[in-house]
Structure formats: structure tokens, C-alpha cells
């Protein structure tokens, strides 16, 4: 029975290893290879949106990796290749959103909220500490009595 379970497990895992594959690319120099690796990390797979091109096994990601490889190989620069992708798929293809008018809120928003929170905190602390009337002479006297004992 135990053996059968192991066999089942093995058979279940088998397809995974069949699908795993390594694309081997030849580059002219280490710079090109570094650029290719950087691009595949920075560019998003449009089909499985939370993966970059390097991680994704989707067909389109494979095609775009191939495209990036060809362009790197033909000596295109990082900006030329990302511009090529943006022209077709929009800013969304970049994992790191560019700073422009439509993303100001995205970039600045967290700092605005931090400032607001700090102001609110400051305001509440000041109000708390200044709340309540100053102690009367009577109260001071009784407090003194406790302290002296």
C-alpha cells in the first residue's frame, strides 16, 4: 500500500518535470546577458499579470523573451527595448510604474497619507495633553499631602 502511494506521488509529480525546461541563449558578451536578465525581470507577463517574463511559462511570455533576446543580440539598448514593449503593451508592461501624470498619486500618495497621519497624531497628542483644567489650590494641597506621607 505504501509503495503504491509513493508510486502515485511519483506519477503525479512526473508531468511537472516534463514541463520544466531551460531556454539556453547564447550571448556575445556578459553585458548582453546581464541586460537580457534585467529586462526579463523588469517586464511583466501580460497574461499572468503577477509574474515577470523571467518567471512566466505562458506562451506570450516565451515569445516576448525571444523578442527581447533578439533585440539584445542585435545590440539594442535597454531603453530601446522597453520603449518597443511600451509602444505595444503600454506602461503596464513595466513592473515598476514610470512616474508620469497618471501615476503621481501612486508615487506620492503614500507620503501624503504619512503626512496626514503625522498631523493627526500631533493634533490628538496636543489636545490630550492640554485637556482638563489646571488643578485647583485645594487639589494641589491634597496631592501634596499624599506625596509628603
Amino acid at each position, binding site marked *: 500500500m505504501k509503495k503504491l502511494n509513493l508510486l502515485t506521488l511519483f506519477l503525479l509529480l512526473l508531468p511537472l518535470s516534463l514541463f520544466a525546461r531551460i531556454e539556453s541563449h547564447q550571448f556575445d558578451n556578459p553585458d548582453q546577458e546581464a541586460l537580457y536578465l534585467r529586462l526579463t525581470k523588469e517586464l511583466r507577463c501580460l497574461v499572468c*499579470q503577477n509574474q515577470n517574463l523571467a518567471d512566466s511559462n505562458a*506562451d506570450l511570455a516565451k*515569445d516576448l523573451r525571444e523578442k527581447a533576446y533578439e533585440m539584445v543580440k542585435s545590440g539594442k539598448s535597454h531603453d530601446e527595448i522597453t520603449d518597443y514593449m511600451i509602444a*505595444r503593451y*503600454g*506602461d*503596464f508592461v513595466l513592473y515598476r510604474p514610470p512616474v508620469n501624470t497618471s501615476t503621481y498619486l501612486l508615487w506620492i500618495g503614500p507620503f501624503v497619507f504619512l503626512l496626514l497621519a503625522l498631523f493627526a497624531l500631533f493634533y490628538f497628542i496636543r489636545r490630550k495633553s492640554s485637556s482638563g483644567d489646571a488643578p485647583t489650590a485645594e487639589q494641589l494641597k491634597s496631592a501634596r499631602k499624599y506625596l509628603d506621607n
Partner: protein
Amino acid sequence: MNRYLLPLAGFIILVGFLAAGLKLDPKEIPSPLIDQPAPIFSVPTLFDAAQLIGTEQLKGQAWLLNVWASWCVACRQEHPLLNELARQNLLPIVGLNYKDERDDAIEWLGELGNPYTIIAHDLKGDVGIDFGVYGVPESFLIDKNGQIRYKQIGPFSADDIQQTLLPLIKTLNEES
């Protein structure tokens, strides 16, 4: 009383944003190609590999580019609507058979009918990349000057065609 108003206002604003967020479809990425010239391509047609079809041959008229494949399930769902649209004879419907085997594609059309005026065969998906295709089916409406005016991501519904596509086709056909 006043001390509850501020959190309540904040809560209502938050709910507003979340409600709007629920209606957004993260799969629909706005195309940068809208109001840009359609990418130039020239590839063999599906039925005759010796004949080329591309942007050049389609100039001077409004046309619809529909990206499809025989392996695409949603295309099957959309197909009857395209057949219906083709019957109305409003504009050429150009198919872009995307990363598909010629025989499979022809068999698929034999089974479900062929709404296309002409079909471009994009075996390697290069034309698809130029058009920024990431989910089949997709459709592009292109005007007489070769500009992309509208992009549909995913299959058309009957409502999409009635409320969006048909009025746009009418406008484009009336433009000089």
C-alpha cells in the same frame, strides 16, 4: 456626535473607492495603440500561402481586425456574433489567425462558418506582438486613414456589438 462624523466620512470614501475598484477588470489593459496608426504587417493568407495580405491592401476603408485561433475557447463563443456581423455586410472583417496551424484553422472555419473577408496567417505571432495582443480573441477597429480607433479585449458580447461596435462602424463609414 462630531467625533463620529470624520471616521464615518473616511469610511464612506473608502467604500466608494473599493466599490469602484470592484468594477475594474484587471485583465483589461488600456492599449497605447488607440488613435495610433495600425502596425504595418504583411503575411500570407490562411487559404493561400502564396498570397500576401497586410495593412497596405486594406488602406482606404474602415475594417475590423479580429484576432482568433482554433485553440481559443472564447473565440468559439464569439464566432456566431461575427457570422451575424458579416451577414450585415458593413465592413470587411479581417481575421488574424494567431499562432495556429493552417489545417486546424481551416477545419475550425469549416465547422463553424467563415465570417472573414480575408484571413492573415500569423503563425509565429509576430503580428500579434506588434498589435499588443495578449489575450485571444481581440479585435481592432481601424478607420479609413489606417488609425486604430477601438480595441476589444476578449470576446464581443451581443451587447458590445449593438451598443459599441455598430455605432462606431457607422461613424467610421460616414467619415471621409
